């Protein structure tokens, strides 16, 4: 079945089983591999993308459910790696292996879109669904506070 949605600003039509999770449509059908597979059960956050501006776990989101909607993946977070969270992540040198970081960045960007100056408690709440096995959590926390500053300065 053909399903059309907007991906990172462009129209996308895919012809797949409508039950297929968005994650696998992005990765396997479209070859957009920035969004990662970690658990397949909404337990780890590696697959986080934005649908109509909100963070969702693409591993449990059937592609049928996003017909007509707007999807942003890590590749579309900014054109030139300048989104405040990306800048802050670079300043803090957050990633180790890096595998979880697409999901961390998408979750953090969504948090900042809703909460301009998140507290540590806000960060715990918004980010506890994103596992990092390399243990970059304290750097993630610092980078989110820093991204809020960058964003505030820009606004």
């Amino acid at each position, binding site marked *: 079945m053909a399903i059309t949605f907007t991906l990172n600003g462009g129209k996308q039509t895919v012809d797949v089983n409508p039950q297929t999770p968005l994650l696998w*449509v992005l990765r396997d059908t479209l070859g957009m591999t920035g969004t990662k*597979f970690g658990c397949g059960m909404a337990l780890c956050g590696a697959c986080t993308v934005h649908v109509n501006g909100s963070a969702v776990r693409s591993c449990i989101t059937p592609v049928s459910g996003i017909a007509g909607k707007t999807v942003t*993946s*890590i590749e579309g977070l900014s054109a030139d790696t300048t989104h405040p969270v990306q800048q802050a992540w*670079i300043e803090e040198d957050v990633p180790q*292996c890096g*595998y979880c970081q697409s999901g961390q960045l998408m979750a953090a960007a969504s948090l900042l879109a809703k909460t301009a100056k998140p507290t540590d408690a806000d960060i715990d709440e918004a980010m506890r669904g994103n596992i*990092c096995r390399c243990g970059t959590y304290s750097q993630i926390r610092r980078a989110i506070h820093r991204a809020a500053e960058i964003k505030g300065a820009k606004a």
Partner: protein
Amino acid sequence: MSTTVVNPSANRRDFLRTGLGLLVGLALPESSRVLAQGRGTVPAKPNAYIHIGADDSVTFIITKAEMGQGTVTSLSQLLAEELDCDWKKVRTEFAPVDPALYGMQGVFGSQSIRTCWTPLRQAGASARAMLIDAAAQKWNVDKAQLRTDTGFVVNPASGARFRYGSLSEAASVLPVPSGVPLKDPKQFKYIGKSVKRLDTRDKVNGKAKFGLDAVVPGMVFAVLARCPVFGGKVASFDATKAKAVPGVKSVVQVPNGVAVIGENTWAAMQGRKALEVKWDEGPVASVNSAGISKMFADYVQQQPGAVAKKTGDAEHALASAAKKVDAVYEAPFQSHSPMEPMNCTAVVRADSCEIWAPTQMQAGGRNAAAQITGLKPEQVKLNTLFMGGGFGRRGGVDYISEAVEIAKTMPGTPVKLTWSREDDMQHDLYRPASYVKFSGGVDAEGWPVALTAKVACPSFFGGRPGAVDSTAVEGIHTLEYTIPNIQVDWRKADPGIPTTFWRAVGYTQNTFFAEAFIDELAAAGGKDPVELRRRMLGNSPRLRAVLDKVAEKSNWGKPPAGRHQGVALVNNIGSFTAMVAEVSVDKGKLKVHRVVCAVDCGHIVNPAIITQQIESGIVYGLSASLKGAITIDKGRVQQGNFNTYEVLRIDEMPQIDVHIVETDNHPGGVGEASVPPLAPAVANAIFAATGKRLRRLPIRPEDLA
């Protein structure tokens, strides 16, 4: 910074062989651990390379794989330091697998900096000397007059300057000098500095290619149904229902199970759910965790064990000790669970095989593929991609073998094999479960005089029969304390669960056992845990120094109100680490508030990466100490995903303070330095808080109640 990390380009080998631009190579020493076990090969040819393009770009060929430990950056620092190039011009590429050029390629045992420290600096220094030679010839001056300045050869007398890029071609045909002197560490400008990681940018914009991100034209997607019981085999299978699932292309049997091939991974996963397989489960089907624990206990009771260490006469000293303490400690199997599950992409043709893999063992992967396909190793091309974590798991090459087996059934078609999280957790090669019975004695003044440790656990690193597997006892027989009578012995107990290296290997369980038991001896003798250790470290100035540092920085003995402290030490991977955990236990609820760590890893290459790695190990240790355990029932792993095997999350993160104690010793590793002392530091802090000794991991809420 315009740095990128890319995979070997198609013409990489050509530029390596034709030498366009400057190339310098030197042999790297091999991993001592691998050599010690007689598994390594000594490289016959140069194996580390620098390429300087006419445009001044500097490309370092990284022979080690990157799993987050920072090798891409820190190895580049070693090269850049002596080459004296402009850091902003540095790019890196992963080397192709080529034992003739590079020797053995693999990352394990926190070896990269330790083994590359001297050779890579020599490579950089040789290249710099060749650029100076080339400039001396062009200017027709004595090379002794010339200097370099961040990417230029300069003649101080005339003020003339040559860009490295303008010299690289001429330099490339000059002989490689030997014995070029290395810089005095006081002059280092890159080594010892927290230069930014070279791989960050691509890891925040989705461009970094991990193993699972390999995209090969015409690729199909596979998952594999494996017997849930270790060692079991396919008895029979019926693929009718699987093939009826939309998007499923085919079903094939391979040695490890039955593969379902689909037009995408999810279709293949749906097909696997519908697949009907009868398994011949084999003998492990009767194994469970309680039985394994009993097996270990029986072995300790019934078997004398192979002696790993004997100093003095421990049994005799125990008998005459003023006070005696006995305790049994246990640790469970652990899964590695890197964020990126195992995977591999492969294509097999009549005369070649190409692999895209996230692997800690590049050469091993290539050799496995050669064996399966009957091709020569040179006909197998293995592309090294980023690893989404490794922690030892990716030293195994089972996932590479599986992908090649599947690809072999469909010559010419590239196949990406993806392990689900459940596959990854239930078919891991685990950190061995282990069991130890300690006895210790203190004299009338309360100082330890005797220690015995009787260990039982599986072995994956076996040497000769009857010999002790060092990974089974390291952390106990390596204790540096001056206890006059010590005996450590080991019984190999194999319940049939596959095991392998897990971040920090034997120290992960044994340092918990030993450092918690030392605390028991301190309590038995009425001694302060730091004072007791300090007094017994007369022969270990480096351990004593980190202990003093951590005691100072943690404000040992004076924790904030309501909190309690525990201390533990380890000396592994050439480094010395001391840790203090600060915890509270409130109505049976444990909270780890703060972890203070002091580490001496000798010469420092990149303090920021060291700090990252120490924090990383602490988080990994916290997950294993407080959360996850792999348990077995009916020969199967009972956990499957992060809901049943929990790991630490951001809201449970303690404050971590890392203090690097710099010394001018040869660099030690850091990736595995901080995992071992975490569990005993926490357990000892819990004792301080509650008076309870926790002798098995993970620490469970019911143990605190």
